[in-house]
């Protein structure tokens, strides 16, 4: 498919046109962004048809961007099943969210700018997905970071938004240091940026080097995919407009990390130690996200930690060696999470509040939102036969299949996380939409059509994409087989499925009991285990640790260096030299006694010294 590059290019072009065209364009140019992303979605269908027609295999092409010395720096696209899946996912979700934004952002002062950056963001993500070489991937990867920076900081007049944008960029940038060093390392070892070239030579590299390179690359993935301990930016990213959150959490930003690991999996496979690290980081992240989501009172924050948790699951699946499970969960989660966020956005739009404690009974006022939110929540909680059920099972199966010592232990924890997920989703759903409608929320209203249609579309997706996993005769081989070949067709382990469904149902039932039936009070529980509660409310003090580190270590160190520069280098070294000259002049002038015989003695000593130097020193030296 030679025209795959059009998908990102259209979006970049839309960005450029809107920025240059400014407000002179009709509707501030929003239509350009939507046309571009629709075009990308069109490219996806065309590429899919082309790919299926071609049968199997990948298609790649590349052009030279520039040359440095005799090194070609290429730009190229590769289309394989993995890229194809992501292309479709990203372009569809971005399209839906942009349409939704038409309604949500209406009346904003920088309406056009919003769509421009949206196009940039989507284009960058598409470029990440399609990139056939590490350098282009890094380029696009950074542009994704830029997009997130600009979108999170969209309302830059708000201090919190500016800080959140900065935090997101800096945090992901920390991870990118690792990614870039990893790319440099691989280039040094293999002499190429091309993924195919690197993979081809990977087998000849030593495991140690590969482990280092993959760990470095994983560091980049940790930043973008909000893995512990670089997850802190994601909850703060709520400061952007809600559709942006939906985009970031579903398909673009956070998906990039998971996609990167999947893309570079041929390298990870050869470094088993890295895979264990990936799995453990994923597990810790999943656990942290799930527990924190339980105590958050801001609806969007609950969803954010839910995303953290699910990203952990995806990484865990990758660590367990299953791309198919990770990507399938990515897709299912993308639909559900986009839906949930659009629902949350609809709530904010209609009820103008975000604290779950102040809501309740909103289903009476916004039935469509409530219904779609419920679909998303149930899907994510893993209720059969919604999509989350299928994908979560895949992850569990991947972990189970890995065997060894570590992974069975992980499985037990994982079931706990499934239970917690169902619990916090039940909490969010029930507190927001069920219960009694409060007086102050009576004015709440349902979202308009341009916002409702995308939600409906996503609800269908969230409910149905799970079935993609199944083989449908000769029409579709099933998701796993499409992605990884025949060996990865859909399968099921009845015992495991039973356990996971039980965990999910149990969690949901508990949530129902607590938040709907009020069988016992969560406040009492919080008081009893106040230490634990404080720990959770303070997000495990990770943010505090960072703040402490920045204030007490980084800034203190930099102040120290600046002071060193001023006192030692400048005042000591520079002014010191000048002072030395001045002071030595002051001292040495006393040698100028004014007494002629002193000077005469000086001449004599000088003559003797020259003679001695001439006879004794110079012959030794020469």
């Amino acid at each position, binding site marked *: 498919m030679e025209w795959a590059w059009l998908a990102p290019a259209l979006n970049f072009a839309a960005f450029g046109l809107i920025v240059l065209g400014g407000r002179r364009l009709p509707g501030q140019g929003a239509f350009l962004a939507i046309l571009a992303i629709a075009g990308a979605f069109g490219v996806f269908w065309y590429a899919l048809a082309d790919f299926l027609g071609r049968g199997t295999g990948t298609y790649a092409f590349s052009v030279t961007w520039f040359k440095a010395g005799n090194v070609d720096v290429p730009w190229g696209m590769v289309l394989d099943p993995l890229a194809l899946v992501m292309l479709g996912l990203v372009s569809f979700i971005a399209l839906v969210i942009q349409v939704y934004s038409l309604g949500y952002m209406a009346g904003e002062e920088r309406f056009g700018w919003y769509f421009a950056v949206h196009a940039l963001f989507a284009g960058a993500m598409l470029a990440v997905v399609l990139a056939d070489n590490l350098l282009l991937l890094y380029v696009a990867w950074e542009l994704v970071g830029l997009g997130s920076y600009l979108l999170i900081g969209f309302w830059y007049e708000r201090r919190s938004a500016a800080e959140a944008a900065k935090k997101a960029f800096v945090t992901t940038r920390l991870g990118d240091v690792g990614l870039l060093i990893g790319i440099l390392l691989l280039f040094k070892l293999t002499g190429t940026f091309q993924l195919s070239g690197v993979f081809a030579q990977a087998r000849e590299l030593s495991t140690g080097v590969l482990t280092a390179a993959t760990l470095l690359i994983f560091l980049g993935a940790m930043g973008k995919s909000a893995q512990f301990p670089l997850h802190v930016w994601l909850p703060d990213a709520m400061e952007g407009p809600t559709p942006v959150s939906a985009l970031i959490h579903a398909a673009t930003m956070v998906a990039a990390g998971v996609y990167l690991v999947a893309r570079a999996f041929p390298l990870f496979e050869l470094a088993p130690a890295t895979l264990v690290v990936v799995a453990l980081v994923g597990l810790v992240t999943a656990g942290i996200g799930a527990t924190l989501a339980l105590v958050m009172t801001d609806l969007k924050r609950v969803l954010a930690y839910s995303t953290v948790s699910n990203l952990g699951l995806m990484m865990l699946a990758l660590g367990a060696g299953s791309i198919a499970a990770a990507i399938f969960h990515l897709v299912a989660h993308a639909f559900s999470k986009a839906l949930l966020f659009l629902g949350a956005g609809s709530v904010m739009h209609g009820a103008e509040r975000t604290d779950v404690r102040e809501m309740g009974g909103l289903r009476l006022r916004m039935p469509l939102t409530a219904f779609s939110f419920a679909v998303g929540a149930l899907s994510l909680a893993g209720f059969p036969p919604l999509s989350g059920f299928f994908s979560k099972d895949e992850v569990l199966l991947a972990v189970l299949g890995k065997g060894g010592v570590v992974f069975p232990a992980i499985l037990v924890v994982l079931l706990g996380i499934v239970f917690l997920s169902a619990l916090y989703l039940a909490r969010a759903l029930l507190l927001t939409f069920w219960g009694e409608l409060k007086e102050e929320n009576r004015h709440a209203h349902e979202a308009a059509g341009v916002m409702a249609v995308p939600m409906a579309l996503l609800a269908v997706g969230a409910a149905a994409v799970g079935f993609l996993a199944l083989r449908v005769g000769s029409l579709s081989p099933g998701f796993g087989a499409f992605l990884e070949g025949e060996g990865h067709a859909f399968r099921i382990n009845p015992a495991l499925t039973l356990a996971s469904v039980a965990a999910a149902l149990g969690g949901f039932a508990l949530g129902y009991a607590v938040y709907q039936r009020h069988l016992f009070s969560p406040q009492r529980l919080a008081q009893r285990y106040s230490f634990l509660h404080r720990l959770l409310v303070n997000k495990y003090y990770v943010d505090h640790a960072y703040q402490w580190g920045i204030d007490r270590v980084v800034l203190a160190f930099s102040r120290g260096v600046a002071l060193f520069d001023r006192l030692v280098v400048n005042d000591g070294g520079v002014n010191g030299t000048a002072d030395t000259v001045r002071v030595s002049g002051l001292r040495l002038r006393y040698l100028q006694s*004014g007494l002629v*015989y002193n000077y005469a003695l000086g001449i004599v000593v000088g003559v003797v010294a020259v003679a001695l130097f001439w006879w004794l020193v110079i012959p030794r030296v020469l």
Partner: protein
Amino acid sequence: MITLAHLQVLSAALFCVGLYGVLARRNAVLILLAIELMLNAVNINLIGFAAFVDHEQFVGQVLAIFVITVAAAEVGLALAVLLRLYRSRASVRVDDLNMLKW
């Protein structure tokens, strides 16, 4: 047998004696005397070389005459300066003459 070396050593010795006088004496007139010693040391050297080496031109002798001439002029002038100095400072001690300093 007198050799050139004899003369050179004598000249060097006389020069250094004079030098000591210049460096150590307080009285400006005595310093002047010591300078005369040094000039004579030079002359011994010149004439020695004239006698031993330069049998054609005897440049050393001619130079020595010039040195004596200049020495005479120098002594005259220097003593005049000293008189002047003595009149203004009431002293010819060189350790009193330290106005040209920092």
